[in-house]
Structures are given as C-alpha cells and as structure tokens.
C-alpha cells in the first residue's frame, strides 16, 4: 500500500476490490485500458477527487502508464485533481446556458462564496466549477449542486441555493 498516503486504507481497499471485479492478472491490455474510465469514476466517488497518489495507485494496479491516466483525468471535466467541497456547485456554461446568462450566475456565486471557479472554500464546504452542457438546455441556465438540478437560475436565486445547502436540503 502507498507509503505516504493521506487516505485511510479502507478507501484504498474498496477501490482495490472494485478493480479486482474488472481486471485480473490475465487481463489483456485492451481490457485493462477499457476498465480505466469506470475505475477513475469509482475512485472519484470514493475519494472525492483524484490526486497524484491515487492516480499512481491506479497506474500500478491496472499496469497502465501514469501519463495515460493523467491524460484521461485532465481530458474529462468530470474528473478533478483538487479536493471538492461538501457541496459541489457546478454552473453549466454550455451554449444555451451561456446565452441565457450563466456567466452572471457564476459571478454572483463566486462573490457570495469568496472563491473563483475551480476553487474550494476553507473547511471544504463549497466548491465551484463550470460544466459543459448537461443536457437540460430547456431549463437554461442550469446550476447543479451535487446531484440536484436548479433550472432557470437568475443571479437573485443564488442566496436561496446557498441557503438550501445550509439547511441540508442538498445532501
């Protein structure tokens, strides 16, 4: 197991047992590569983000070059290498949402939380990100908090969204 790891072994164990359901020693390169996306997805679900040490762990377990894993992690905006807040706030900046004022909403959120896009508040409560089209263009502009979707969002709705978080409605 990783020597200088910051995570408890239970999390690594559960990632490892997930990996063992997908690949074994006899798996082909193609099989191992095909398992990379689900494994990264699972890892982010378990750890919340994908820092260096977790990518190295996966590289070793799947016997895939770290460079390849890093390439995939940086390609998909879903994956993140930074820790996320308890409330992950994502503003859609796809074409429809952008035209309908996503930028203003983003700005307001950034002001209220005192962080920029891609950052997380002290104490890891809120993190703020943008997403490409989430496929709900009819509701543009769209903001997601964890799995909950807010549609037709205006600047003025921002305080209410944050209040929902405080009241635990978004957990």
């Amino acid at each position, binding site marked *: 197991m990783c020597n200088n790891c910051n995570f408890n072994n239970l999390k690594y164990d559960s990632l490892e047992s997930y990996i063992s359901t997908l690949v074994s020693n006899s798996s082909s390169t193609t099989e191992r590569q095909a398992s990379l996306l689900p494994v990264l997805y699972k890892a982010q679900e378990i750890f919340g983000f994908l820092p*260096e040490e977790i*990518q*190295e762990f996966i*590289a*070793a377990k799947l016997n895939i*070059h*770290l*460079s*390849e*894993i*890093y*390439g995939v992690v*940086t*390609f998909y*905006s879903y994956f993140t290498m930074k820790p996320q807040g308890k409330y992950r706030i994502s503003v859609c900046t796809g074409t429809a949402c952008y035209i309908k004022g996503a930028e203003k909403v983003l700005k307001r959120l950034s002001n209220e939380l005192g962080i920029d896009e891609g950052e997380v508040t002290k104490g890891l409560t809120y993190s703020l990100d943008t997403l490409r089209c989430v496929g709900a263009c009819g509701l543009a502009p769209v903001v997601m908090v964890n799995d909950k979707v807010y549609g037709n969002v205006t600047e003025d709705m921002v305080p209410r969204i944050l209040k929902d978080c405080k009241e635990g409605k978004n957990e």
Partner: protein
Amino acid sequence: MYTIKIKINDIPVEVEAGTTILRAAEKIGIKIPTLCHLNLHDFKVDHTPASCRVCQVELKGKGLITSCATSVYEGMEVFTNTQKALRARRVVLEMILSDHPKDCLVCDKSGNCELQSLGEQLHLRNVRFKGRMSKHPLDFSSQSIARDMSKCIMCRRCETMCNTVQTVGVLSNTGRGFDAVVDTPMHRPLQDTKCTFCGQCAAVCPTGALMGIEHMADVWRVLNDKNKFVVVQTAPATRVAIGEMFGMEPGTIATGQMISGLRRLGFDRVFDTSFGADLTVMEETKEFIDRLNNGGRLPILTSCCPSWVKFFEHQFPDLLDIPSSCKSPQQMFGAIVKTFYAKKIGINPKDIVVVSIMPCLAKKYEAARDEHQIENMHEVDYSISTRELGFMFEEACIDLTHLPKEKYDNPLGESTGAGVIFGSSGGVLEATLRNAAEILDKKPLQNVDFHEVRGLDGFKETEVEINGIKIKAGISCGLGNARKLLEKIRKKEADYHIIEIMACPGGCIGGGGQPFHHGNTEILQKRSEALYRIDKKSKKRVSSNNEAIKALYDEFLDNPGSSKAHQLLHTIYRKRNKE
C-alpha cells in the same frame, strides 16, 4: 495482393490495394505535403492521426479528403492541385501558424523544421488569422531533452515514439480543446519522470517543440581556455552521419574529414570512442565467459546504451543483476583518459577536459550520472550530439566537404572493426562473439562475419557453437522490443546466453542526436552499411588484437576483470521509481 487502378490528376496509376493516395501520388512524382503523418516503414510505425489536414486533396464527386489516411479504390479519381485543395491546405497552415511563435530566426530547429518547410512549399506570405496564443513553460530540467510546448502543433508523433515504439510512456495528450498539450504525468519536469532520454520523440518532432539540450557553448569555452587540455572522442555512428549535414550522400564515410575538422576547431587530441568500444568488448567478454563457466546469471545483457540502462532501472528493478556491469565505451574512454593517459602525458587530470561527440542525447545524461566520476571529476565533461558538432563546424566556417582526410591521434585513436560496428544494432554482440570465440577456442577466428545479427530489424537472433558450447544470442533495438524480451526473461521463458539491447530503432545510427532523417529510414540503412564497410576494410576485426588495448592492459590494467579494471571500468545500477 491485387492491384487497383486509379487516376490522379487524370494520370492513370496502378498500385497495390491498401495503398494510400499519398503513396500512390508519390509513384508519379507528386509529393503532397504532410505534417502530422509519420511512416517509419522499417520499424513498422505508421502514425496517421489525420489531424493536421495539410495533405488534403479533392476526390471527384466527394470533395476534400486527407490523402495520408485514405486508401485507394478501383476507379478512384483524385485531384491534388485544384484551387479548392490548394486553398484548404493554405487555410489549415495559416490556422496552425496563427498559434505558433514565428521566431524561426532564433529557433534551434530552423533549417530542419517541417513546419517551416511547409510554409516555404506553400509560399505563404501572410497569416490572416489572429487569435489566442498557447503559452507553456519551458522544460530544460534534464541534461538531454528540451521542451518548448508553445511550438507544439499536436501531431502527437512523439507520443507514438514514446508510448508505442519505446513503451516508456512518459508523454500523453492532456487537457482538451485549445488547452490540449502533450505533457508529462502531473506536468512533472522531464528530469523527474521515467523518461530514458532516448530522444526518439525529438528525432521525429516536426517542429522545435522537442529538441536536444545544447552544450556547444561549454565546448567553445574550454576550447578557448589556454589552461585546458581538451580531448575529444567520436562515437562510431557519428562518422557515417555527419556528412549529411554538409550535403554528402547518406552512408558517406567522413571519418577523415571529421577528424581534421575537429583539429581545426582546436581540440588538442582527437581520439576514437571505438577504442573505448574495444575495451568494453574485452571486459564484457571476460564477464560473459565467467558467468558461462561458473554458473553465473544468464543471459548477460549489454549495458552500453544509457537509455536502456535507465529503462530497466525504472521498469525492471527486479532484474538489476542481469545486465553486464561494464560501463559504456564513452565512460570507459573518459575514465582511461583521466587516469592512464593523464599520467602518460604528465598533465594533471583536473586540467584535462573530455568532450564526446555522440549520436545520442542520453549520453549527456549518462556523462552527468554520479556513478561516472573519478575523484570528483566527471569522466566525460561534455557530450555533444552529431548535430551540434555539425553546427560548430558551420559556425566556425568549416565546410567538411573541402577538408583533407586525417587520422586519429595515438594511442586512444586506435580501434578495430569490432569497435566500429558498435554503432549499429547487433554490432556489440557481434564484437563480443568474435572475442569470446577467440578466447574460448584459443585460435584466431576463420569467419568473423555474423550476418544474421545485422540490420535494422527490431529483433534478431543467432546460435553459434564456440568451443563445443552452443551459444544462443538475441538482439533487440527499440525499447518496446526490449520490453518483450525482458518480460520473457522475467517469466524464465528465454534461454539466451547473451542479449544486446539498444534503445533506438536501428541502434546508435538512429540515435536522437543524429542529423534528422525526416522519416526516411533508408538513410539509417545506409549509415549501418557504411559501418560494416569500415569493419570489412579494417586490418584488425577482433578487439583483443588492438595493440593499444594490449598495451593498456600491460602497462596499467593488468587483465580484463582485474580489480583495477573493476574500479575504473565497471558500474552499478540503481532501482528507480516506477513512474
């Protein structure tokens, strides 16, 4: 294989099925420009991402298509120079250039850059598009490879070399859209990765994004320092490549001109790395025979390629005991200069500077390794590539084609044919077999030619009977091929006695520091043949017959494998991080 008839610009062409339009057009003398595409046929590398679109042609009834990625079909009619096709290529090039620093005048790659030649070929006089410019930090962290990703055009040839051919796996496409760039894992400086510094990425990069780190300024400085005695050694593969930079035919043997050129640059002594190679053969043969006779670990793997050494240190740390402990010819040579030779000529080794001319970028890294020092002195002070030597000649107004042919200085300029073929894949092994056969059979060899181990193939093998023992030998070049062999050894599925491994496809003649071949592997073939021509013409073709080597053992080292030899000529390997 059946053939297909097509028409290109109304000219009928008949080609094999599966041929691309690009290749079919070449047959009738039409050279369609390309940029991202790279086909190293001899090494089975076909890199066709079809991403740059500069090779577009017009297909009758269909419009524009990429000629590098489209195969011919019966009755196809293609036009390579319609206004539509020409305009499309031009627009594509303008878009690429709109995000390219146009500092050709001071770019390392100027004169060798495929993007620059493309601009020339299309006679582009203006770039109409203005947009955002990519900015990426420079990476000069290593001794060997310089990275300036703002010059990257995302052809991804380097990834194919690093990941598919070499299987080292340092480079990957990262990010997306405009921000996409080829990067190391976690954006680490190359120095902190498992990069082997083979330089194959730089050898195929069409632009100045990946280049060698240059040490010419250091060499100029010591050449002009009156208090320094500057000794140069030239690697085998450089003599059959340097001529290309001065318009000589590939495969020209330019040893004599290179030597006189080096004298004119001001080197005090011009010596030959092939002397170091002969010495390596002596030590390695001794080690091989010892292992063979005393039940030591077999196969023994050669260790003259620093890139290969770094590869196994990272990726096969469990096998550190199989490679030979011999240093490379470059390092053995440096060690002998700073001990034996310094004493012989009565100069304090601290005042001697050893410069090496190498076909390789990893040799720079090798020279800087901590293991390769004697009393806090580097055995080799500066290693420069064949290309850098060519640049130095140019700068000093030396035209190689007009120089007289001179000879190496003595004694460290004496070598045998065996020492010279080190530069081609299979050469080290052939040299070692020649020597082993003489020692074990205790009589001069009748036939010193081992043809089956020569050539550019990624894997070759042979079996020879020496003194009643059947010796099974394997040769691989290209780290991907080496990996396959190592995996077999790890699983105990290989029954070789001796294996030669070179990191670069074709061996050192195809090194990352050689004049650019721009995808034409025939050039490598010719360089290799030239080395074997030198060998064939040599009076002495077995390393143990080198008189200067004999004298070195008599006067200084005692015997191959002696404790003195071990102290100076052998090294240790260390386990390195997996990534």
